[in-house]
């Protein structure tokens, strides 16, 4: 999965004497080189599961896999806002549950709110919860780990209380078409192609425009073949996916087209990446994560930005919750999943976001989320027990953290 928004820092054109694999890769791909091992792992996993189970790459399973990945992706994006600053929010799983419940409850016939009002309420509540943790962390100078751990118990309790009170039996079925369509609805095949081509065209236009304006200003430009390589990769993957999505995957009735969820992920990914890479706001997020004291001395209101990060984390977890409840078809006290938050951290970190702050991009949880979905989906297909799925997911996460820690160590040694 490629993005339309590339990072600003461009690696210098390397001297010819450097012929290591990393250096050569860097000259082709640019500063995104860190994501390459993750993508290789993804490809290896896909090949393995396809060899073991012939249905893995079938259109219906791939679509299913994407829908599974959506919740991990949004939760991962939520966690990236916090990890970038060296913070963490362990309540995001329950915050997502809160959002899903609010959306399900208020769109239910008993309340009958319009879907947008219910969604908005859910997202506002989640943003406020994040903001509350942020204010506590900043004002009382407490570690976010403990504050949000306590917070996760609080949100869990409140959520279960609400579910029990509103509906006897503790469940809120999703009765809104819009809410259901978040994961069930599809674009028509025509719109699938229009969207796919638009993504490729916009990415190409942005890359070429940026290259031109740098060249016009007399600045160093990365080699042109780097743009070509990226665009070719993007085109191949997008067209393959569009073709897969447009293949009929229904057994009795015709089901085809890209799930609505995919363009929605792209939209959020695009906006977040733009904010992080192209605005002062994003620049300050990285600066605070890199060296909080330096950011403070540069006049950045560090504590205010830390609260913003918690709010954005809550907001994004709220989006994840809408998709979560849509996929489950409702929310009840039995659909709660305490391990959800761990998937949030895992998606972000497996993609390459640093737990130590200052390093990460919104594309990382997209890749990380897809990897988690591939593992979950694939292991079920090859009939591994669900207990083993936990173990393997844990091992993958442990591996990702180890890589992160080693990367950090080698970076420190470079100084």
């Amino acid at each position: 999965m490629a993005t339309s928004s590339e990072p600003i820092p461009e690696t210098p054109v390397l001297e010819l004497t450097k012929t290591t694999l990393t250096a050569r890769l860097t000259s082709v791909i640019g500063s995104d080189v860190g994501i390459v091992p993750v993508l290789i792992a993804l490809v290896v996993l896909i090949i393995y599961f396809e060899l073991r189970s012939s249905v893995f790459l079938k259109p219906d399973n791939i679509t299913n896999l994407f829908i599974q990945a959506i919740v991990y992706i949004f939760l991962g994006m939520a966690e990236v806002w916090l990890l970038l600053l060296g913070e963490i929010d362990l309540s995001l799983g329950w915050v997502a549950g809160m959002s899903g419940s609010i959306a399900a409850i208020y769109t239910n016939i008993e309340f009958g709110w319009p879907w947008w009002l219910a969604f908005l309420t859910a997202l506002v509540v989640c943003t406020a919860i994040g903001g509350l943790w942020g204010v506590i962390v900043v004002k009382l100078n407490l570690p976010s780990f403990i504050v949000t751990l306590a917070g996760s118990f609080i949100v869990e309790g409140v959520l279960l209380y609400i579910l029990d009170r509103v509906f006897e039996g503790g469940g809120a079925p999703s009765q809104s078409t819009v809410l259901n369509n978040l994961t069930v609805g599809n674009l028509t095949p025509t719109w699938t192609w229009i969207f796919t081509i638009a993504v490729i065209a916009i990415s190409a236009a942005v890359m070429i425009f940026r290259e031109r304006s740098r060249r016009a200003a007399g600045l160093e430009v990365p080699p042109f073949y780097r743009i070509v390589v990226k665009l070719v990769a993007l085109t191949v993957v997008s067209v393959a996916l569009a073709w897969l999505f447009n293949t009929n995957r229904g057994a009795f009735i015709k089901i085809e087209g890209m799930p609505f969820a995919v363009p929605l992920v792209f939209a959020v990914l695009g906006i977040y990446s733009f904010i992080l890479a192209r605005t002062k706001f994003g620049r300050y997020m990285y600066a605070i994560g890199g060296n909080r004291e330096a950011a403070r001395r540069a006049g950045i209101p560090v504590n205010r930005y830390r609260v913003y990060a918690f709010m954005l984390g809550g907001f994004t977890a709220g989006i994840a919750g809408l998709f979560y409840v849509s996929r489950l078809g409702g929310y009840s006290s039995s659909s709660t999943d305490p391990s959800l938050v761990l998937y949030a951290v895992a998606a972000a970190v497996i993609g390459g976001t640093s737990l130590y702050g200052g390093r990460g991009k919104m594309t990382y949880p997209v890749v990380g989320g897809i990897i988690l979905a591939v593992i979950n989906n694939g292991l079920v297909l090859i009939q591994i027990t669900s207990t083993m799925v936990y173990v393997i997911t844990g091992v993958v996460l442990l591996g990702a953290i180890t890589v992160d820690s080693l990367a950090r160590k080698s970076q420190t040694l470079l100084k």
Partner: protein
Amino acid sequence: MSESATGEPVNAGAVADSDAGIDPSMLLSLRGVTKHFGAVQALRRVDLDVPAGQVTALVGDNGAGKSTLIKAVAGIWEPSSGTMYWQGKKIDIHTPKEAALLGIATVYQDLALCDNLDIVANMYLGFESTKNHVLDEITMEKRTQQTLKDLSVTTVHSVRQLVASLSGGQRQSVAVARAVMRDAKLVIMDEPTAALGVSQTAQVLALIKTLASRGIGVLVISHNLNDVFEVADRVAVMYLGTLVSSGPVANYTMSSTVDLITTGVVSRAA
């Protein structure tokens, strides 16, 4: 500073804090600056003149009050008493921001750089140029390149390099260039060569000379007397919170400076 003061190293502690002795051609003049921390007297009636276009080295043993002094000038804390003059005019500096607005830039030992950002982003941290709320990378990159070129910092391969990949000397250069780019008139540097090897020290010393040749006043804290005698135009020696001697570097020798640092007086003939 009057000519008489430049003859012999003077005992500056005795000068009264009146406007009469202020030379408006001096960039920064301190008169009778005192700082207590509770019962501890960190600075006692310090008088110091820092001219533009010259390098003033502030030397002294650990705990002599060098850092306390520069923090007063940088606006980290206010002196308990005494007066500061900026280009001949009396000023009060309450915050680092006020110091920055006057044109006083301080490069601390930790350099305050973000390792995870590139050189351009560090140079502009907190002062980013934008166009319609979008970062104007092209303008920032060009100006960064120009500033580094003006300061003859040529060892940096690309301004898009992450600061984490720079050597100690290059990092120091970026921190100084950042100050210069924001039109600093006085650059204060705390132990700029303390952690550097031989060639990188030479790099930084060359940079300090370049700054002075561009008309910027430089105040350098240093423990390394070799560096001081190589780069400084003026020397100021602190001993137990008092400025015991200051003047042109020609008035000092290595041994007289060591005496002043360790005992506060010159015990041997210079």
